[in-house]
């Protein structure tokens, strides 16, 4: 192969590179420069990069929208007791009153201060070798750093609310860090719900779960975005618990990528439901790295595909030599409702310790004719019977959402989606 061919940049890559203008303290500049250099070397990922095997971002992000201008600050109200931190067009405009034990700093302040600990957690997290995470590190100019003090239990959720003001095509780059102190408990919602938006959203959320701490993360990805690249970078300290549930439905291209570094005796659960139709393409790629003994991880992902949608699931459970007694279980199930839909599954195990129990299961199928017949023979119309079966299929993953308000919202969405299909 000719080397000069490789170095040719796509218009997308050139446009993204042109947006690079780091500011802040020398230490933060250096970190972002390093990330930018990595992106420049790797470029936008294509199918040639194994972790992007089924999502050719080089092709799908050919046209880069201009960067969004700053948004004016505004008052933000709490929602049913939950603290809301709102981002409009890629910029934090404000937040409702912070619960006790929670502190918040803007990304620009953190960059200007350049304290090593915070910068390390922000930029040297798991997954930082991925080109899209690197791109985000280089270009993200807004975001928040949230600290939850040790031992604090928050009854209501903290909601990171990402909103588009209108349907103008914009590029947004945000990077957030949530640090949960030892023994603290938190529900963290990441919400993308704006309809008729066409933004290209680059978001990286780093979560550091302290020892004995517990974090429940809910991802609501139902906004009508052009591109949503959401990276979740999680580090779980000993005895920590991290549970995440994702609802993915809107948008032309959604790529969720999750890295979890699981410490000693930790519990990790990653689950999700994707409802896709039309030309939608949604990719969930995750890597769980068990680095210490006695941890447990569970993954359960359900895809429901209609129209000519494409669902991708790539999951990798890594068990390092030291991580004896790891218990890992990964499941991916897909329901294909249309002959034009596509499902790609790649559940991987990479195991270097012998005293472990790890397994994965993956299925792809259509609705069961027998079950459908059973319901219809009892007088239920076909579309309704289908909706019932699909709902039941999705439910087993949704059940894991701990927060009642959030769980009900997800269920309502699933039902509405089915109704819209039946009509």
């Amino acid at each position, binding site marked *: *192969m000719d080397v000069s061919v490789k170095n040719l940049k796509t218009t997308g890559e050139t446009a993204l590179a042109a947006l690079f203008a780091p500011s802040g303290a020398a230490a933060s500049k250096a970190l972002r420069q390093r990330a930018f250099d990595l992106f420049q070397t790797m470029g936008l990922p294509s199918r040639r990069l*194994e972790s992007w*095997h089924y999502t050719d971002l080089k092709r799908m992000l050919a046209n880069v929208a201009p960067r969004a201008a700053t948004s004016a600050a505004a008052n933000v109200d709490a929602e049913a007791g939950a603290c809301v931190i709102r981002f409009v067009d890629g910029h934090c405009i404000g937040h409702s009153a912070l619960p006790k034990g929670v502190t918040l700093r803007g990304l620009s302040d953190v960059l200007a201060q350049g304290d090593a600990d915070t910068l390390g957690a922000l930029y040297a997290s798991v997954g930082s070798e991925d080109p899209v995470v690197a791109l985000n590190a280089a270009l993200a100019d807004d975001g928040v750093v949230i600290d939850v003090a040790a031992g604090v239990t928050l009854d209501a959720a903290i909601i990171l609310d990402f909103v588009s003001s209108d349907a103008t095509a914009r590029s947004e780059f945000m990077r957030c860090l949530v640090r949960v102190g030892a023994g603290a408990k938190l529900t963290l919602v990441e919400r993308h719900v704006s309809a008729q938006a066409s933004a290209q959203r680059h978001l990286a959320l780093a979560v550091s779960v302290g020892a004995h701490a517990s974090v429940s993360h809910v991802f609501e990805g139902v906004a009508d975005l052009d591109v949503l690249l959401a990276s979740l970078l999680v580090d779980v300290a000993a005895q920590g618990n991290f549970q995440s549930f994702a609802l993915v439905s809107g948008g032309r291209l959604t790529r969720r990528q999750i890295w979890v570094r699981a410490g000693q005796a930790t519990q990790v659960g990653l689950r999700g439901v994707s409802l896709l139709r039309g030309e939608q393409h949604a990719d969930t790629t995750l890597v769980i790295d068990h680095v210490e003994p006695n941890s447990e991880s569970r993954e359960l992902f359900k895809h429901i595909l209609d129209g000519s949608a494409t669902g991708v699931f790539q999951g990798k459970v890594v068990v390092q*030599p030291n991580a*004896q007694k790891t218990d890992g279980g990964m499941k991916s199930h*897909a329901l*294909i*409702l*249309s*002959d*034009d*839909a*596509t*499902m*790609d*599954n*790649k*559940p*991987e*195990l*990479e*195991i*270097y*310790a*012998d*005293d*472990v*129990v*790890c*397994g*994965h*299961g*993956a*299925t*792809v*199928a*259509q609705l069961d004719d027998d079950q459908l017949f059973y319901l219809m023979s009892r007088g239920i119309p076909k579309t309704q019977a289908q909706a019932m079966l699909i709902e039941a299929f999705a439910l087993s993953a949704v059940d894991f959402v701990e927060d009642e308000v959030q769980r009900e919202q997800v269920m309502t969405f699933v039902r509405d989606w089915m109704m819209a299909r039946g009509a």
Partner: protein
Amino acid sequence: MAAVHETVETVKSVDVDAYKYGFVTDIESEKAPKGLDESTVRYISAKKNEPEWMLEWRLDAFRRWKTMTEPDWSRVHYPKIDYQDLYYYSAPKKMGDGPMTIDDVDPELLRTYEKLGIPLREQEILAGVTTSRVAVDAVFDSVSVATTFKAELNKAGVIFCPISEAVHSHPELVKKYLGSVVPVTDNYFATLNSAVFSDGSFVYVPPGVRCPMELSTYFRINEQNTGQFERTLIIADKGAYVSYLEGCTAPKRDENQLHAAVVELVAHDDAEIKYSTVQNWYPGDSEGRGGIYNFVTKRGDCRGARSKISWTQVETGSAITWKYPSCILRGESSRGEFYSIAISNGRQQVDSGTKMLHLGKNTTSRIISKGIAAGRSDNTYRGQVFAHRKATGARNFTNCDSLLIGNRCGAHTVPYIEARNASSTFEHEATTSKISEDQLFYCMQRGLSAEEATALIVNGFVRDVLQQLPMEFAVEAQKLIAISLEGSVG
């Protein structure tokens, strides 16, 4: 219990360095000059007295190979291979030209095969204790030295001969099928093979014929610094059936040797091909010195409706295995099967699996893979199941289990499951575990030693696959498994 006892006895009877086929046959060889360029390709072609079209085919492959780069996506690591530092052709010197009888074969060669447990004299086979007969094509370095039972197979209309002979005797079949399943441009190693392949087996089973006996090829690498590039082509015409076995060994040497084979299977309407491999190339010593680099492209084409191709493999040898026997399920209602036991010990690296490409309607496939990693080895299952948009009603079941023995080895599973229509049904399950303490305790409590108990449990673990092997091989494979795991217990 008797089988277990036998397994354990076998384990005890071998030395620490357990490879028992590691001897060298002292025989004078004629070799192509070291290195690879167009003249090497011409040399091999001339040695085989090949027609012009065959030479052109090889040269075309060679020119393409020069533009390709070695693939690096698999989970195997090895120092860069110097393709100019190899002999691409080596033949025992005393081999005459053209066909010959078994009496013309160098007795030293016959002794070698006897030592390997492969009798080449038909009367010996008939006089032997084996109840069923197996026709053997014995390939030594780059040439086929003998093919048994040719006459009897001829009576049934079955063609079984070295591929170099088929180029002359059945050029129309070779021209039609060679490269039709694994195209010249398929991958780096297949293209290299297309340019320099020296021998291998050719099988054609005519319509409606059930091949009267098992066919088999025994591959032996003997010469130093020599690569073996064999090519096998098996065609089962409409309604035909053939079962084919393949075995391989090599001497112990400190340097690595390259083996890049291509196997092509074609099954027409209602035909069935059963292909079994017991791969026992020299795996290198416990420190990872020496051993065979096994880069093999095996692919079956279920071209006709209701055709069936079944791959069964027991992989215990080779320093590096890179091998993905696949099925292209083109014919309607055709079926592909893959049964595999891959055992790695010492510093072996295995990256093996299968591809099931569902293209026709109502095609079905089944994958059962058992990986056992011991010592400091790495054992990867890599497989693809794909259903084309038009492959409605496609079904696949995949089960891959891995067993780890010791905490310095690795077991990995990398499946690609790709559905392109609504009526295909795929099921995939994989597990990784170690031999459970409970099972071991249960066995030992009943008086078995740790080694015996492990052998019993491992035999149970791989039983699904062993059952798919023809009888003659199943026994050998069972023993092999015991040997490969020797020293890994406790």
